């Protein structure tokens, strides 16, 4: 029974080492454990899917910065792939604050190579940063080209064919806000309640809890919560036969699951050791 006493006194650096290994291995050798999809993710996916052929666009907003990138960037990629494959026009909007635009750029870099026949200006438009936050959301209710003037690359918006069809929320099927902060609420208040444009949300695992009430009241069409939400969306597009690239969230979920299992394992092991050694002392 010496073994259990040793376990109780184990140097915590062994635990650190195993956590590190458990995260790295699935990243290098992905397993792709299946992920069950949940209703909030399916309803968002279905809503986007039904826009195919209607001419209505998806506006994808990257309201996040590097600190929440591991959870939110895979969502951006998965949604972009979905729209690109189904030829649903996309407005990719680099977020309400200036620090966020790099995230949108990164999402494009990761997805575009798989869709070589896309035409910029016709299939998608990239909007950069303009100051104003909620004023920008309000402004787009009137006119997108009036609010932004130019796209991220400096082209005049009214010269782009897509923008001629879609210049305000009337022809935007859904705004999907990916955010680690409170910005989805701002979109609901100014976008949905004022102009009636539907809002979908992708958020971090920690923030997801606070948005459940708004999901229930239908203010959000659907929600992706954390890495798991992103992984579910990846599964849905994979099932639809869309090129998925590297399934970052799904692979991340492998690592995530392993760490959770490892944690539960050491908690149980610790308790067995604790109870056995306690009994022996009595």
């Amino acid at each position, binding site marked *: 029974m010496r073994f259990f006493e040793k376990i109780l006194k184990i140097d915590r650096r062994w635990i650190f080492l195993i956590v590190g290994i458990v995260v790295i291995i699935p990243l290098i050798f992905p397993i792709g454990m299946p992920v069950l999809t949940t209703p909030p993710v399916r309803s968002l996916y279905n809503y986007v899917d039904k826009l195919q052929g209607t001419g209505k666009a998806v506006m994808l907003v990257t309201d996040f910065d590097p600190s929440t990138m591991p959870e939110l960037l895979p969502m951006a990629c998965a949604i972009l792939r979905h729209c690109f494959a189904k030829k649903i026009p996309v407005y990719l909007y680099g977020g309400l604050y200036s620090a966020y635009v790099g995230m949108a750029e990164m999402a494009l870099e990761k997805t575009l190579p798989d869709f070589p026949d896309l035409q910029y200006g016709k299939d998608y438009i990239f909007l950069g940063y303009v100051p104003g936050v909620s004023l920008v959301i309000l402004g787009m209710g009137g006119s997108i080209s009036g609010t932004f003037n130019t796209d991220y690359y400096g082209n005049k918006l009214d010269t782009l064919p897509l923008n001629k069809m879609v210049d305000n929320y009337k022809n935007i099927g859904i705004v999907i806000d990916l955010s680690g902060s409170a910005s989805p609420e701002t979109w609901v208040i100014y976008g949905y309640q004022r102009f009636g444009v539907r809002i979908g949300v992708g958020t971090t*695992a920690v923030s997801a809890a606070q948005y459940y009430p708004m999901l229930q009241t239908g203010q959000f069409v659907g929600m992706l919560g954390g*890495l798991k939400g992103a992984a579910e969306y990846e599964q849905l597009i994979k099932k639809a036969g869309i090129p998925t690239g*590297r399934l970052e969230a799904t692979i991340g979920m492998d690592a995530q699951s392993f760490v959770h299992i490892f944690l539960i394992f050491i908690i149980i092991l610790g308790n067995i050791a604790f109870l056995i050694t306690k009994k022996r002392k009595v």
Partner: protein
Amino acid sequence: MNISTDIWVWIAALLTLFIYSFLYKDNPFYKFAEHLFIGIGVGYTTVLLWFNSVIPKLWNPLVHGTSPMRFFLIIPILIGALMFSIFSKKNNWLIRIPIAIYIGAGSGLAIPLDFEGLIFEQVKGTILTKSMFNSFIVGFSSIVLFIGVIATLVYFYFSKEHKGFVGKTARVGIFYIMIAFGASFGYTVMARVSLLIGRMQFLLHNWLGIIK
């Protein structure tokens, strides 16, 4: 393998490893990264202060402003300048004036906002649970919620000894608190692991290029 050739990526990667080396034990690499971080942190807040406060609140109105109101800005400047009294042995009590102004105004602002945010919202949420009595489960859950809030409040009741009925209720309160802490702990693990995955993907993808 497709190792990065960008010097900045290398810097970021090495600094990442320096911080992780702390998990093994303290060492000069960690010490370097730690002090670099502290210095950069002070520098960064200085830059933010400069562009978000000094320029828009002081420089622009005083230098480029035209409104006659701008001369009133001298009042907060003088009050703020009392902070310099800390350098004096005799008059360093003057520093209490800006602190008192700050804390007095802060307290006055906080009182109604605490009522709204911390008390009313929580009280309302406890009374109104969604679609009560629609089903047995929701009704039962609402009772669980109600008992929990009351019992936790009893635990924080300081001026009664925790004996008898009060003691038992407070103990129920502590049970709720422990379940809540366990649940929040388990819930947060996920987000923390995501962060580690993010760093590992940076090392393996952006730096070493082992994974695509």
